[in-house]
């Protein structure tokens, strides 16, 4: 009898720990993946590899910040990839014309405008965020393509310090960390310790209750989507320095993985639960996973299948583990 009674209690204690510290299973998973990688390819685990993994995880994690923040209120920002692409492309094409600081300023302003537009639609017209950001993404892509025809002859130039940020190393670690570490600290601090951060959780958990407690929900949404656009713009700049070519579909391949990173990181797509800490681990997990699938030397199709299946499995297990009900 005791044999039959024991396992559930151990399991429930285990799951309570998991629910209280949702980052633990994610970190365990990340370590597990790295160990598997080391077994698959002994000796891969060196400073250079770690630095490379971080280098590619940083833009993903930053773009996933847009998804995390908007998901906390129950929304999503599907225009993030497009905005990042536009910021990168505008910077690269305007730098030879008007100089780097001005170009970056214009790029970030454009990103902010798209974010404001999203915020306007979601906050004031009450459009579903999925639709609104999809629509602005479409419009922005169209504008980018039209814009591209006007600057096709000017050539591109990537500001030197963006390249330094994107590809350079200091003490073996990528320089992108100089941007990313303050950024992450600010977000993690902001989501719990500032009024705005707590408002995001409040609106996401129960919008009606938040409204009745005197929260002006539309202001929160407006600020949130503008912030999301701005972060996406920043990501675009960083990614530009990393890839070192300006293309019209630069950050688009990051769009859906950024959603996946936030989801794998434990942020609930219905709002009110999760945080940026998990998202960073989620982005690292996805990057390590991509390396692993490349090493497997599978056909492209098989790799995509595994990628999708693993995202689904991780999310399903994670939801089971951390479910408080």
């Amino acid at each position, binding site marked *: 009898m005791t044999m039959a009674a024991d396992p559930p209690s151990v399991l429930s204690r285990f799951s309570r720990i998991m629910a209280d510290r949702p980052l633990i299973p994610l970190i365990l998973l990340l370590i597990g993946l790295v160990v598997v990688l080391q077994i698959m390819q002994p000796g891969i685990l060196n400073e250079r590899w770690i630095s490379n993994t971080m280098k590619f995880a940083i833009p993903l994690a930053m773009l996933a910040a847009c998804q995390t923040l908007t998901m906390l209120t129950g929304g999503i920002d599907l225009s993030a990839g497009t905005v990042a692409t536009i910021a990168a492309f505008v910077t690269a094409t305007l730098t030879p014309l008007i100089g780097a600081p001005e170009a970056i300023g214009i790029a970030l302003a454009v990103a902010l405008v798209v974010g404001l537009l999203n915020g306007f639609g979601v906050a004031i017209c009450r459009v579903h965020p999925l639709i609104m950001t999809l629509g602005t993404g479409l419009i922005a892509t169209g504008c980018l393509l*039209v814009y591209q025809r006007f600057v096709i002859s000017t050539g591109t130039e990537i500001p030197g310090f963006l390249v330094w940020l994107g590809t350079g190393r200091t003490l073996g670690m990528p320089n992108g960390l100089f941007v990313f570490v303050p950024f992450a600290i600010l977000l993690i601090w902001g989501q719990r310790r500032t009024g705005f951060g707590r408002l995001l959780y409040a609106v996401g958990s129960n919008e009606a209750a938040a409204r009745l407690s005197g929260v002006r929900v539309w202001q929160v949404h407006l600020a949130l989507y503008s912030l999301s656009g701005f972060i996406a713009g920043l990501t675009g700049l960083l990614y530009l320095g990393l890839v070192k070519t300006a293309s019209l579909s630069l950050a688009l391949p990051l769009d859906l993985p950024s959603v996946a990173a936030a989801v794998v990181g434990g942020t609930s797509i219905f709002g009110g639960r999760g945080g940026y800490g998990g998202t960073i681990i989620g982005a690292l997990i996805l990057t390590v996973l991509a390396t692993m699938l490349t090493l497997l030397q599978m056909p492209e199709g098989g790799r995509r299948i595994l990628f999708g299946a693993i995202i*689904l499995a991780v999310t399903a297990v994670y939801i089971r583990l951390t479910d408080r009900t």
Partner: protein
Amino acid sequence: MMRVLSNNGWTVGLAGLLVVLLIATKLIQPNFGVSGLDSLARAALPFALATVGMAVVVIAGGIDLSIAAMMSVASVTGAVLMDGATDGQAGLAVLAVLGVGLAMGAINGALIVLTRVPDIVVTLAMLFVWQGVALLILNAPGGAAAPWLRGLIVGGVTLPGVPAALTEWLPKAVVFLLICVAVIWLPIRRSKLGLSFYAIGSDTLAAFRSGVAVGQTRVAAYAVCGLFAALGGLAVTMSTGIGEPIPGPYLLASVAAVVLGGVVLGGGRGGLLGPILAVFVLRLVRLDLTLLSVDPNVAAIVEGLIMVVVVMLGGVLAMRGRRA
């Protein structure tokens, strides 16, 4: 009569818009006629079928981000099976593709129900999976389509015993679309299953307490979506003659058309006629802009603007209605 009109105000408005756009097209391009209508209908066919599939899932309160990937699986499956097949075998291949579509949709639905992961996340993950499956089946565009299948959607309708001039303006692709939708959707809509779709879409808990098997209904809705995605994939193969492993722009377009067609995201309201009309409205806008020799990229901006503005207006109107 008035009640029918006011209940279907959105659909009637869309139909009116479609007529206006058709007249505008005729004015812009005076020799726009039977062949123009035919190529428009053929281009719109995969979009329309994807939209119908998406609309069914949205009505049932979900969303399926993997629809374009499922279409490419169906497209390559069909093209590979039909390559070098006789007419009879091609018929079997079509049935097989439809079965594959149903199965893919049912897998999506079952995963959503079993894992309790939100539908957006599951179908996002399955998007990668189905893309991978399509690439495994066919690495590059290839395969073939049976000629009689192509015949189904090319050209105008000709009925024996009726003068050709009376019927040939009606593109076969439209008839094909209407028959597919009627054969699959009408029996469902009339049955308990269709009612259950709307029930779980508007209030899952209430539906559950009224005795609707929520899980099974959800799986069924996704299976129907998969079936339409398979038809959409077949339509791609039918109109191009090859299988296409890389998904087209059907995901965004279908969501746009569903919303423009008056189906409410979140579920429970709307029909299938509105989204179908919306597809044709969007394609016609694009065609008109092309005929006016506007940059196709500007056309994309206009399309996005239409979608956003319409949805914004809808949101504002809905708020007004609630206050009144």
